[in-house]
């Protein structure tokens, strides 16, 4: 009798405690969702001319959906392969611009200069421009904007 009570109690405790613990630690198994954003038809991009695209990214934050304005510098060498640069300078996060006469990206804050591939030509930036993942689906260019300047190779 005592053993039966102990056994039943242990079973109840295991089910309740186990599911409660599973609930508590379930964030540990949460996966980061892939948030691909449509930047338009691939035909809109001219070869070797970087184009700044503004877009709105929708991100699911648990039960809520948050919208964020963001942008990317898109470059294509041939109309098939695409590079999307994070529009923040890798030095201190200033927005840089494309100078078509020099064929360079110029950052106004500390006179950083990047070439068309995002490599540092001169100035203080510690690394080349960060890139977003890109893919082409059905003739549409998709990017996955990553936050916080982590380089998505």
């Amino acid at each position, binding site marked *: 009798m005592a053993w039966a009570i102990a056994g039943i109690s242990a079973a109840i405790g295991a089910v*309740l405690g186990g*599911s*409660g613990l*599973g*609930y508590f630690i*379930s964030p540990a198994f*949460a996966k980061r969702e892939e948030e691909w954003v449509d930047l338009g038809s691939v035909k809109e991009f001219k070869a070797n001319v970087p184009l700044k695209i503004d877009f709105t990214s929708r991100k699911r934050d648990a*039960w*809520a959906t948050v919208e964020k304005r963001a942008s990317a510098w898109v470059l294509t060498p041939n109309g098939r392969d695409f590079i999307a640069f994070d529009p923040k300078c890798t030095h201190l996060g200033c927005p840089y611009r494309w100078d078509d006469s020099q064929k360079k990206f110029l950052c106004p804050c500390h006179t950083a200069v990047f070439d068309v591939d995002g490599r540092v030509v001169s100035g203080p930036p510690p690394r080349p421009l960060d890139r977003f993942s890109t893919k082409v689906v059905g003739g549409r260019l998709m990017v996955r904007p990553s936050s916080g300047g982590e380089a998505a190779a």
Partner: protein
Amino acid sequence: MISAALAWTFERTGVDKIWEALFARHIPEAKGPVAWLYALGSATLFVFTVQAVTGTLLAMNYVPSPDHAYDSVRFIGSEVYFGRFIRGLHHWGASFMVVLVALHMMRVYFMASYKYPREATWLAGVGLFLLVIGFSFTGYLLPWDQKAYWATMVGANIAGQTPFVGSYVSKILIGGAEMGAATLSRFYALHVLVLPALTGGALVLHLFLVVWHGISEPPKRVEKGS
């Protein structure tokens, strides 16, 4: 080694005496189905513990705001591991609380266990019964679905029928002239802060009195008159 550590602890805290007083006390000899009736109070305490734990877990993913309440409850059910189960436990536990408390009260009433010297235990128990009803009423609103909304509307209208002060009672209850965001956050605060605090106090008093007075004997059949 272990016994030395236990002796050290017992001598300085007295937990062995407390354990003896709580769990080695005299329990009335009852046989058959009647004996089960003495488990109703403990069963209520157990379900209350489950409610406290599952409620704490649910609060980790719940937002008492009209924008997010329903979505966060759906999130618990669809995204959180064991979320449906934990919410189900809390949902069914709520009904069990009311049923068990009512049965426990009937047991005490029909066995006349509320009589001298246990009136204070009975009164604390009545307080706990009202608190359980309060938990049911405030918790029902929190999923913020149609059923929750309109059930609370009915409750507020009933409170509004109080003679003379009805409109004030109803406004205090729902936190404004109309139901809305203030109602939801008010009910949430009552459900997770006010009522648990009151219940904790009343529960300690109730259990202390149960241990202090001992459990009443079951009524005995008297053969010759009374």
